[in-house]
């Protein structure tokens, strides 16, 4: 698993690659909360994510809650395959804003 950050408009984009699970989700959490702490809205890019476990989902939930409190946004882009199924199983697809790709976000 690896992750890196880029910019899209005024958003920070967090690209997740590979598998997010118990062994690495704490690192992703720190990065995500750090972006939000700095007052940036965030797009989490799932396009290269092959697997995410419930610790990863829990981190995104915490991130969304933090974003809402700070009147920022957290959007998930390009969720397909297994990660999308996990979102659906946990019904979090009804909680997060999902977009097909990062570039779908225009402003």
């Amino acid at each position: 698993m690896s992750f890196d950050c880029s910019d899209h408009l005024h958003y920070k984009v967090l690209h997740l690659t590979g598998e997010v699970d118990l062994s690495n989700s704490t690192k992703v959490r720190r990065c995500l909360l750090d972006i939000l702490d700095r007052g940036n809205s965030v797009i989490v890019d799932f396009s290269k994510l092959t697997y995410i476990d419930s610790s990863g989902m829990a981190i995104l939930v915490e991130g969304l809650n933090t974003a809402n409190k700070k009147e920022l946004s957290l959007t998930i882009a390009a969720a397909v395959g297994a990660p999308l199924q996990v979102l659906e199983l946990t019904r979090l697809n009804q909680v997060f804003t999902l977009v097909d790709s990062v570039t779908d976000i225009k402003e």
Partner: protein
Amino acid sequence: MSSLDSALIEVNQLDASYGDRQVLKDINLTVNKGEILVIMGGSGSGKSTLLKNMLGLMKPAAGEILINSMDINSVNKSELLKLRRTMGVAFQGGALLSSMSVGDNIKLPLRQHTDLDENTISIMTRLKLELMNLAGFEDLMPSELSGGMLKRAGLARAVIMDPKILFFDEPSAGLDPVTSVELDQLILELRKAMNMTIIVVTHELESAFTIADRIAVLFDGEVVITGTVDEIKNCTDERVINLINRSPRKVQIDGEKYLSRLTKGAK
């Protein structure tokens, strides 16, 4: 996909006994990755003993059990521990610790085996409770839950670490029909979303036919047949037909042996 390279669990020529009493005889069984295998059989057929052996909770009298190509009875402790972290078990009655709240019971594996933030642990626990239709029950004690709720709480704890292999002992026993159907659906969804390999022990035919990719039928400690739902339904073995038709066993009595059991006890 050949069955050889996708086998996650292999049971080879397994014998198991309690004292002198042999309970499993020459069991051969393969569980493939991502498969739902149902072990079916009447009471006393050896289902739970087979499960205990697969979990490494009981040493086999003979034979071997391979998980991920590792013999669970000969690997060292740290390897066994690593293996066990990828396995979840939901026991028949839930097996929650009665002195802890439902939430703390479910959090236990995470607190024991991970260094996740307490916030993450709480959200993960609530996600699983939501999944099991137990939202809002985390602060209750196990004694305050019904049998069906206990079972679902036990399942929540079994899957809290997102195991690769889930063992489930009698999921529908003691549940009302609606809850039982919901649990079957949940098992199917868990497999689909988390790609879990699931081994279910049950005597409920409806449930077995709904969830199973393959069914292994145990009878008196032996595997009578392993096959797809259709293969089981079309099986001509009288013992399987009796199980499906719920006919009582007609055991031929050996008069001499019966008399001996009554006067001298069973040997």
